[in-house]
């Protein structure tokens, strides 16, 4: 004779199933061994039992678990009638319904939080830097070389409209007398960095700077952001940097120094070459 489980025993006690002789003996055996089912049988016979509640309690999950499935179901804000009996006698589930109603009203209020005034400026600064990099990268370097070579050739070809322009331009940038259309004074006053360094040196520095600028990936973006952050801090544009900002900027600061050093090394090398030639 196989053993009977509680679920089958409850079915038979409720009259939901009709046992044969073997199953009747198994039920008797089960009732002798299982105090819960024996107690249930005695209460059932004394008509003290709430049938619906007992069905919920005796099936696969506990009454509260089954009630929770109904209470928190999507679209189940109105509990079905079948829960009424359980809710009448279960303070825990009533409290859960109150908590549910209170919570669901509050949750949408947490959808939007203010990140502060600096947020937009920082994001725009980062995207602007990347936008410049992207713009440069849209034009292959070969094009730039091609255009430069074409201009250089035009400057050298006899009778070309640009012949001799390079000397005039160099002289103009250095503040040569009478060569600038706006006069030497203007050139000296406004193109100070260019007049301080020979054109070749500036060109070398610009080339290295350009290579750095066209670097792709996170590093270029982070370094650009770091420059913006430091600039905003020192110019008092973006508010004071927090201690956390400084911690994040520290490794980037080394990267920035490295970039500046590279540019400066190129300029200095060209300066030295210029000096050697003059000597």
């Amino acid at each position, binding site marked *: 004779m196989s053993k009977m489980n509680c679920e089958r025993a409850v079915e038979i006690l409720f009259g939901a199933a009709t046992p044969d002789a073997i199953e009747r003996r198994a039920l008797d055996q089960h009732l002798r061994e299982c105090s819960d089912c024996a107690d249930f049988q005695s209460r059932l016979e004394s008509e003290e039992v709430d049938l619906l509640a007992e069905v919920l309690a005796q099936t696969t999950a506990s009454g509260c678990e089954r009630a929770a499935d109904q209470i928190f179901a999507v679209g189940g804000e109105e509990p079905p009638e079948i829960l009424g009996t359980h809710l009448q006698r279960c303070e825990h589930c009533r409290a859960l319904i109150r908590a549910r109603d209170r919570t669901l009203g*509050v949750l949408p209020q*947490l959808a939007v939080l203010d*990140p502060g005034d600096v947020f937009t400026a920082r994001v725009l600064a980062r995207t602007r830097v990347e936008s410049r990099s992207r713009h440069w990268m849209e034009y292959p370097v070969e094009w730039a070389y091609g255009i430069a070579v074409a201009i250089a050739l035009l400057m050298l070809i006899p009778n070309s409209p640009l012949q001799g322009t390079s000397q005039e331009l160099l002289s103009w940038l250095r503040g040569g007398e009478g060569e600038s259309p706006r006069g030497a004074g203007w050139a000296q006053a406004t193109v100070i960095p260019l007049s301080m360094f020979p054109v070749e040196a500036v060109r070398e520095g610009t080339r290295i700077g350009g290579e750095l600028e066209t670097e792709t990936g996170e590093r270029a973006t982070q370094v650009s952001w770091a420059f913006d952050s430091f600039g905003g801090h020192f110019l008092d544009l973006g508010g004071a940097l927090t201690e956390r900002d400084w911690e994040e900027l520290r490794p980037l600061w080394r990267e920035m120094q490295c970039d500046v050093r590279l540019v400066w090394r190129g300029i200095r090398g060209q300066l030295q070459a210029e000096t050697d030639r003059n000597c």
Partner: protein
Amino acid sequence: MRSQQGRVYALCCHILRDRDEALDLAQEVFVRVWRRLDALEDPERFVSWMLSIARNAAIDHGRRAKARPPAQDIPVEDMGSLADQSGGPAMDAERESDRQMVHRALGRIGEIHREIILLHEIQGLALEEIARMLGLPLGTVKSRTTRARHELAKAVLAEEGGLSA
């Protein structure tokens, strides 16, 4: 951008539960959104697309940050809420109290359930959108939502000092 930054920041705040990290990550999310705008096929799905990027970024960030000591949970008032403030000071105080209590309760529930609450109940995404975002069957998302609501309600009761969660 201004209209959406509060949503992204809020999502990052609720996932990371650290204001400074959420600010940094929300910036990163917007940069990523800007970079990938060309990949957005249906403009009407912009919000769910953007929140999906924010959610993935926050999860990645959380994984990387697991080695670090846990951040101190921020009080919701420190986050700066933009929710409706109408109704007078007494109503404001009650709402604020409720918001703080629910925010703390959110910190008590599991990550999987919190994610569902954030996306569905807080950000208002449809269950179909969430199923697509998480790569799960709709039925799974529905049952997960039911369990998440249940867990949150128990956490709220625990916060209130009522029945144990």
